[in-house]
């Protein structure tokens, strides 16, 4: 990125001043090294988001920001319905409520070493992963609607997991005001065979080891000890969310001119929050959030089943579950005044700080666990929200490493088999239906996740608590 167009406010904060059609400035949080490596498209996209009606404070980009579609991936923007604010289907994206959940296992590395290969094979056999895979569960029309209203709570009611899991998720595992009537038959049809599936691309299930504790106090609050084995699952709302995104993006792009909205890029398709279309989208998007929560809950049970088979001593208890492609209605303090805003996070994680009323009692003092997925050969991190009421970027943080290289380039540089063998030599077992998929997801195609989380902490977005390194990775 050309830094000459930016004003540097601090070591970690870069401003694109308001100009032209921008209604607010754009703010990018990144170290000099990260921002220099960022694509110029992040500048362009963050600037265009700042042009949308009713945007409040600034258009933000997180340290892992990269070229997305419409919004940058790693983009955060909040809109006020009282000021003509909008909801953008492009600002949430196709993979609605894609997110990460992490589970304790109650095991240490020594407990799994002898059975690691068997565990990898059992997980791979039980977790439907990759293109064309299908889940065991088929829902009737009525059951589908119940799932879309109930989320993970519905899944627990069907025997997937335990009620205690629900306390340790955003929204208590059930997004309120979901409206299945706003979800098309085609979207429901696309989900029919996909409940309890991982998906593909950057989605994964990893068995990981805690290799560093960086904040002992919060690590204790999160129940993390050096050497612990944990499991992290990264996936979203599957075909249902993709189809909702597709259909509402189109409808909003076509309806925007009549609503008086000039779109700087059609991918920023949006509708006024107070319009019928805006409200319909919110109802459908919340249903997709519930679909993602239910999906991760089902996958959690499949994971527990796999562990029970191989390591009956394991106790897989939820640490937390975060979603990083959403639009959520939240209270935020802006310029000393409380406001009810619709916060879009696209490839960005909510990061509520200590004392936030939405946090479960277990994390009220520590701040919210912020789960950051890395690439399969490097590391993942657990952070803790540190925002106060007037927190930065509407209490948001990064979501992952962020790609630094296109899939095309990754495929040119690496071969899947060689990568799998190299990782195996380092003790990381990969199970994936496609070697080409492995090459496209090569660890070096991603930014340095450590630099990303360190920048997030320096920016005051979230505090780094623990580093996790992969032992087994089931790739979709």
């Amino acid at each position, binding site marked *: 990125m050309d830094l000459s167009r930016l004003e540097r406010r601090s070591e970690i904060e870069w401003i694109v001043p308001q100009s032209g059609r921008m209604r607010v400035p754009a703010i990018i949080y990144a170290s000099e090294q990260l921002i220099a490596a960022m*694509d110029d*498209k992040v500048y362009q996209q963050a600037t265009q988001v700042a042009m949308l009606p009713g945007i409040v404070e600034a258009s933000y980009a997180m340290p892992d920001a*990269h*070229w*997305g*579609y*419409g919004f940058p*991936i790693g983009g955060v923007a909040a809109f006020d319905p009282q000021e003509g604010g909008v909801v953008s289907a*492009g600002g949430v*994206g*196709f*993979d609605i409520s894609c997110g990460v959940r992490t589970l304790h296992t109650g095991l240490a590395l020594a407990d799994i070493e002898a059975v690691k290969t068997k565990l990898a094979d059992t997980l791979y056999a039980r977790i439907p992963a*990759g*293109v*064309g895979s*299908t889940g065991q569960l088929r829902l009737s029309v009525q059951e589908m609607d119940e799932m879309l209203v109930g989320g993970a709570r519905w899944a627990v009611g069907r025997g997937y997991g335990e009620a205690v899991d629900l306390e340790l998720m955003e929204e208590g595992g059930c997004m309120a005001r979901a409206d299945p009537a706003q979800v098309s038959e*085609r979207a429901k*049809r*696309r989900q*029919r*065979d996909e409940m309890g599936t991982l*998906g*593909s*691309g950057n989605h994964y299930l990893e068995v990981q080891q805690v290799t560093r504790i960086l904040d002992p106090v919060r690590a204790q609050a999160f129940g993390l000890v050096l050497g612990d084995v944990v499991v992290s699952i990264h996936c979203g709302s599957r*075909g249902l969310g*993709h*189809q909702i*995104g*597709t259909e509402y*993006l*189109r409808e909003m*792009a*076509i309806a925007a001119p009549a609503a008086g909205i000039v779109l700087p*890029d*059609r*991918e920023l*398709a949006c509708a006024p929050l107070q319009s019928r279309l805006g409200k319909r989208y919110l109802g459908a998007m919340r249903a997709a959030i519930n679909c993602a929560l239910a999906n991760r809950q089902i996958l959690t049970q499949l994971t527990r089943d796999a562990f029970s088979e191989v390591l009956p001593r394991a106790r897989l208890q939820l640490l937390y579950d975060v979603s990083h492609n959403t639009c959520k209605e939240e209270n935020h303090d802006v310029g000393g005044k409380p406001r009810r805003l619709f916060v879009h996070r696209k490839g960005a994680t909510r990061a509520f700080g200590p004392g936030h009323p939405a946090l479960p009692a277990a994390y009220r003092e520590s701040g919210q666990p912020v789960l950051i997925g890395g690439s399969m050969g490097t590391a993942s991190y657990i952070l803790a929200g540190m925002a106060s009421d007037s927190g930065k970027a509407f209490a948001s943080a990064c979501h992952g490493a*962020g*790609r630094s290289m*296109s*899939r*095309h*380039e990754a495929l040119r540089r690496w071969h899947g088999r060689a990568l799998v063998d190299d990782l195996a030599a380092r003790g990381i077992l990969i199970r994936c*239906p*496609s*070697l*080409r*998929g492995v090459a*496209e997801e090569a660890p070096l195609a991603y930014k340095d996740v450590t630099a990303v989380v360190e920048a997030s902490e320096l920016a005051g977005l979230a505090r780094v608590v623990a580093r996790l390194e992969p032992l087994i990775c089931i790739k*979709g």
Partner: protein
Amino acid sequence: MNNWAHFRHGADIGVRGFGATREEAFVQAALALTAVITDPALVASMVPVVIACDAPDDELLLVDWLNALIFEMSTRRMLFGRFEVAISGSVLEATAWGETIDVERHHPAVEVKGATYTELDLSRRPDGRWRAQCVVDV
């Protein structure tokens, strides 16, 4: 010679098709879409699926066409290797031929979630050929 290509996008991938007509460019863009997932030459074009779209402009029609294929691939668990496209006014009528995904044979790399409006373009190039392209989310 292939008349399709992929182009660079940070997180995702661009699909691009060229042709003497809009229809041929749409066909080639569809082959580029299949190539995101697998080598189109590995797909046996056996089972026909009929597709129809209607959109207010040609660029939206391109996105609708690719999204219709994504929907059919997703719900039928199929891959497509051959296409015929007819466009009349705002209406596209097409047949896609393909087969059920065979993981062992196709090694499908990644599922396509949706066609986006990013880098969306349907235009005639200086050499007279049509170019149809957009970024797809994977």
